[in-house]
């Protein structure tokens, strides 16, 4: 009840944010531009539309998650609205979870809207609804959920600009860390390999959520991978939220 109250107010505030609409506008432009790129392409035009469309949803989704995620918690502290909230019988954990759920709801609405544009555009090319796209989009959304948690984590102790940089760095590292996995396979056993394994354990691997290639090219995906990626997303998000609550509970609000 208390968490949903906070989530509701967060959603209400987030949807007033102009940055959100600006990013949505650019996402829409990017998705529609894929049509132009398709015309310029020799070969399978539909694949280009799918590729660019999914990539746009992913990139602009990440930007939305980072930019609103980092500003909302900070704003509560900076404008001191948090004083009246935390003087009520509200646990700090409930505040964080409420904020998180409100942002997730905002991103869900945004992802649905972007996907609609994408699927409608695709429909005019193939004249059928491509349900498999939804699989890729669902995992993009799961990635956004994780990034939201990361954005809230950083903004619980840092300024919006720094938190944005940290969160974007997290995303970038997450999409490149598969290289480390590759490296581990090629290394001989020893201290170097142990170190690489240690880092790989803690660094995020956001490529787990990337099903774009498989979906676009119609490649088969084993069910185990779906489940693994799903659980990876859920547990990593829970871990980050736990960390956020830990930091947030120790904080003094001067």
């Amino acid at each position, binding site marked *: 009840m208390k968490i949903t*109250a906070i989530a509701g107010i967060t959603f209400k505030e987030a949807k007033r944010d102009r940055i959100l609409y600006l990013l949505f506008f650019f996402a829409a432009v990017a998705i529609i531009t894929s049509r132009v790129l398709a015309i310029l392409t020799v070969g399978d035009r539909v694949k280009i539309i799918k590729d660019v469309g999914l990539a746009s949803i992913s990139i602009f989704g990440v930007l939305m998650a980072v930019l609103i995620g980092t500003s909302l918690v900070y704003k509560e502290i900076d404008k001191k609205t948090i004083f009246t909230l935390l*003087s009520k019988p509200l646990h700090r954990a409930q505040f964080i979870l409420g904020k998180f759920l409100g942002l997730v709801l905002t991103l869900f609405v945004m992802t649905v809207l972007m996907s609609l544009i994408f699927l409608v555009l695709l429909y005019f090319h193939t004249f059928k609804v491509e349900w498999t796209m939804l699989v890729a989009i669902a995992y993009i959304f799961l990635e956004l959920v994780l990034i939201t948690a990361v954005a809230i984590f950083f903004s619980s102790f840092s300024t919006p600009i720094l938190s944005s940089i940290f969160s974007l760095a997290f995303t970038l590292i997450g999409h490149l860390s598969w290289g480390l996995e590759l490296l581990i396979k090629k290394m001989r056993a020893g201290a170097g390999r142990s170190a690489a394994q240690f880092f790989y354990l803690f660094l995020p691997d956001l490529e787990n959520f990337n099903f774009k290639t498989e979906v676009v090219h119609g490649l088969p995906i084993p069910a185990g991978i779906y489940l693994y990626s799903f659980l990876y997303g859920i547990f990593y998000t829970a871990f980050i939220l736990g960390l956020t609550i830990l930091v947030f509970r120790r904080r003094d609000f001067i």
Partner: protein
Amino acid sequence: MTDAIRIENLKKSFRLGFIPKMKEILKGISLSVKEGEIFGYLGPNGAGKTTTIKCVLGLIYPDAGTIEIFGQPHGTARARQALGFLPENPYFYDYLTAREFLTFYGDLFGLGRKETGERTGRLLKLVGLERAAGLQLRKFSRGMLQRIGLAQALINDPKLVILDEPLGGLDPLGRKEIRDIIVRFKQEGKTVFFTSHILQDIEMICDHVAIIVGGRVVKQGALQDLVSEKVLFTEMTVSGLPPEAFRGLGESVSAQGGRVLLKILEENRVDDILALVRERKGKVISLSPRTETLEDIFVETVTGT
């Protein structure tokens, strides 16, 4: 009867500055607020008033000391159940209307829809914002924000209301309105703890007062015990006599437009001067003894430490 608030030896330091340096803000505060009284917490800017309040509310973790709210350790959600708080210079979600705003806070206490609706209506009436119920908070004036803030602090019908500078930045009329509401709290049996540096307001409504300077409580007690009935000096305005006539009687003499203003330090001199005025057919325009005010005590305490 348990105390509404009991603070014992509260200490808090902050790391401040680019190169962190410990600064002790609270140096061992002890005070107790009885149930049902209005308690004024006085002090110059930076004395630690707000820090004390934040410790009580659990927004800041004290380094040492104990705080109890109605006999319960502070900082638990349970202890905050019976508490209402209005921060200094309140800023709220300005895109909400007054009614939405109060409903949101009702939800935080887990009040039902119906109950929240009823209380919201009653509180809007109490703070005189009925007609602004559908207005967004960003269109509110400073005084209206203060009043909606007060309504927010009361949504749970608290036994203890903590107000940080509730009268700051208000015009005289607004101050009177808030003061009246605070006095009404007392009549309803609520305990009020509030900080201020507007001394007349505290003097008018408080039962108990604590003065804090530099992180220490330097004086506390019932208002009537602190403020004595002792006459500090008497001021008298007389017409029809030249200023020279009072030489040696009044402390300072100033004359303007045929009137003489006297400041008389010794009480027994007052009769002498009255007799003199009567004898020389002058006219007493005003005569007012100045007793010690809270302001005198405050200035004396603050400058003395």
